[in-house]
């Protein structure tokens, strides 16, 4: 187990370097960021040169990358164009996005799996068909439509919630954005769980458990569900990284100042430091989430062993 983890951690190094390098190059290919700093007019050449020097843009790209990575390992992610440290931006953005992601994951796990179990056990009944239809609708409607629609209905028409999230972004204001963010994944989780449960219901170990006279609840939760969760856990694990970085649309609709907002702003202003910094952290989150998922397999299915 320990050796497995170490091996996986070492494997992360090339993935990490490759991903950050790619992002770094992509942002650089977009053109000269200083040109956008002076509004609709040309920066005067002297100031432009000074700014380029200050942000290290006057050096060749490979040098910029090496300097940047060197700084990252000492915890210095550079400075954004508005003079703020990128670490400061992260300190304000990540807690918000983590709260949002937690709520989204919670919805996926609780609602998604519950619906999956119910439909999986009642295959072909009206409940199953109804939920299937509902998930089909959710999957096919884009997030921004669901988001804007719910915002308009709940926020403006009925006045149940505030249409936008305040700058502190407490948990209760994030419930609706979290639900919107989770909606598509939630539908997938439901469908995955349903299929998996329906398949395993007919397996030998379930029949044995029932024959032993175990209570129904114990059969479902301990035997059936636990064995059916492996594909679901894989999906949710991969989803964590996706939710954190891919919340740009949801964060824009509800005016949440999280990671998506910073990334969007960074891309518009062509701010290499912000974009690369945030993506670097997201890459790390993704890698760690994947490792945790792999380790969870062993917990769920004792037949799986890592050496």
């Amino acid at each position, binding site marked *: 187990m320990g050796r497995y983890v170490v091996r996986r951690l070492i494997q992360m190094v090339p993935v990490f370097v490759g991903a950050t390098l790619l992002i770094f190059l992509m942002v650089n290919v*977009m053109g000269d960021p200083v040109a956008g700093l002076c509004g609709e007019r040309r920066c005067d050449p002297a100031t432009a040169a000074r700014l380029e020097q200050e942000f290290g843009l006057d050096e060749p790209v490979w040098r910029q990358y090496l300097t940047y990575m060197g700084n990252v390992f000492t915890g210095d992610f550079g400075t954004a164009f508005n003079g703020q440290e990128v670490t400061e931006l992260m300190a304000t953005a990540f807690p918000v996005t983590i709260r949002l992601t937690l709520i989204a994951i919670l919805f996926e796990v609780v609602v998604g799996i519950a619906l999956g179990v119910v439909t999986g056990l009642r295959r072909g009944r009206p409940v199953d068909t109804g939920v299937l239809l509902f998930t089909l609708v959710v999957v096919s409607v884009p997030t921004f439509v669901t988001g804007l629609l719910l915002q308009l209905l709940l926020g403006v028409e009925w006045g149940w919630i505030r249409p936008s999230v305040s700058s502190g972004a407490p948990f209760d204001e994030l419930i609706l954005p979290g639900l919107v963010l989770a909606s598509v994944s939630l539908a997938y989780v439901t469908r995955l769980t349903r299929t998996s449960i329906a398949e395993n219901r007919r397996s030998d170990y379930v029949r044995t458990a029932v024959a032993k006279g175990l209570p129904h609840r114990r059969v479902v939760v301990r035997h059936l569900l636990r064995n059916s969760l492996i594909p679901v856990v894989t999906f949710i694990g991969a989803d964590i990284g996706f939710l954190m970085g891919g919340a740009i649309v949801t964060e824009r609709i509800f005016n949440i100042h999280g990671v998506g907002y910073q990334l969007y702003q960074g891309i518009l202003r062509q701010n290499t430091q912000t974009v690369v910094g945030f993506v670097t952290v997201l890459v790390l989150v993704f890698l760690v989430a994947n490792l945790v998922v792999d380790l969870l397999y062993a917990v769920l299915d004792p037949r799986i062993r890592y050496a």
Partner: protein
Amino acid sequence: MRGATHARRAVCAVAAVLAAAACEAEASGGGDAGAVLSASWGDPQNPLEPANTNEVQGGKVLDMVFRGLKRYDPVTGEAKDMLAERIETSDSRNFTVTVKDGWTFSNGEKVTARSFVDAWNYGASLRNNQRNAYFFGYIKGYDQVHPEEGEQTADTLSGLKVTGERTFTVELAQKFSTFPDTLGYNAFAPLPRAFFDDHDAWVRKPVGNGPYLVDSYTRGSQMSLRTWNDYPGPDKARNGGVDLKVYTDANTAYTDLMAGNLDLADDIPAAQLKNVRSDLGDRYLNTPAGILQTLAFPYYDDAWNKPGSEKVRTGLSMAIDRKQITDTIFQRTRTPATDWTSPVLGEDGGYRAGLCGDACAYRPDEAKRLIREGGGLPGGKVTITFNADTGSHREWVNAVCNSINNALDDEHACTADPVGTFADFRGRITDRKMTGLFRAGWQMDYPLIQNFLQPLYYTGASSNDGMWSNERFDGLVDRANQETDDAKAVGLFQQAEEVVRDDMAAIPLWYQNGSAGWSERLSDVRLNPFSVPVYDQIKVG
């Protein structure tokens, strides 16, 4: 706050029997002077220093926190004395400035001549990377403090001298008669010592001499400004303060306004223009701002800079149906341009409706003829380059191209050429990579006709992106700047503008309006000529 208003109304109702007049007087006086309003905002692009802020979002804050020597009247745009007691000159080149007595910064420090001179020296110095440094370019010694390349050889502008506690002199590098009228721009604001002594702390929480204090500032999300009760100026705020909230998307701000979550949203999104009247009724404002949209040409490309190509350019201008585009795409929030300035200047300031004449009218047949006479479009077709990331430019560029194609009866005469980001777009312009027409927008820095012409069309000027050059134009501008009589100066600038017209240096498209919508709590909402809400005049309740 709403609760408080209700409560007071109730009290008034009870008291009405006893002394109706008192409550009435207060009600007609308008609103609760202590009430705070919330307004939409965007994250400022640069650090909030006066000489470093060149966009409207940072400008909103500076407009509340600072007062300069001059201030532009929110209605007429005229430059009026604010901190300046008098600005005297005999030769349009040497100015003596006297600062009014009794002004202080909100931290108690007196505003003196030095507060200005130090601030201007800071703004001009190359070392400080100030985006607006070129504003000090008229002052003598700028080329030593801010050389084109290499290290600076002086720390302070030699043209600035403190001569007394409240007086200082300004020597310009050349004659510039309307220089005092430029001093209302934010870059010329005074700065307290705290700015220089603990710069980081100041940027985190700016201290100025305006009607509002910065109460708290959470970067990237919110700034709370409160009325400064001891503000010595004549334009004391009529509300308790303003909470500026950062919105990533103007649509969300609009939704929040509809839900009663926000009091003031400026910049109504294009998508909502159709229903804004029915949503807000008379709580919506749409007034001209000092913004002109044009299409510029790359004069560094020989195809656009040969004898006869002025006919092609004029022809293209005549092929654009401005009225139809502003009516349908912009819902009349923009007005077809008929000169190269802006209506906010007023007739006296140099705006002349119809100066462009037929060249800006939709004349498809004439357009076809002129382009043919001028040798046709270079390579048989043109492109219009624009940035696709902000400002919904794609819609109108497509419409302009359609209009040109229809006028010329050629489906392929004009095509849109989008560039991904604004920074990339600006980069290509700076590197002179444009081959066809490109979008050019100009938001005035100060309401002077000079500002609409010199920076854009003077040979080698800071925003002359197309590198247009014309000796006659340059000569007229030089003469206008030396002219001490304002009316004569304006006349000369208008003559220069006619040169721009005859050569069609850039195609004027439309004057842009500023827009704002507000909640029922507010009254007296106005936008100044820079399309910034005049926060201090807004009444709440």
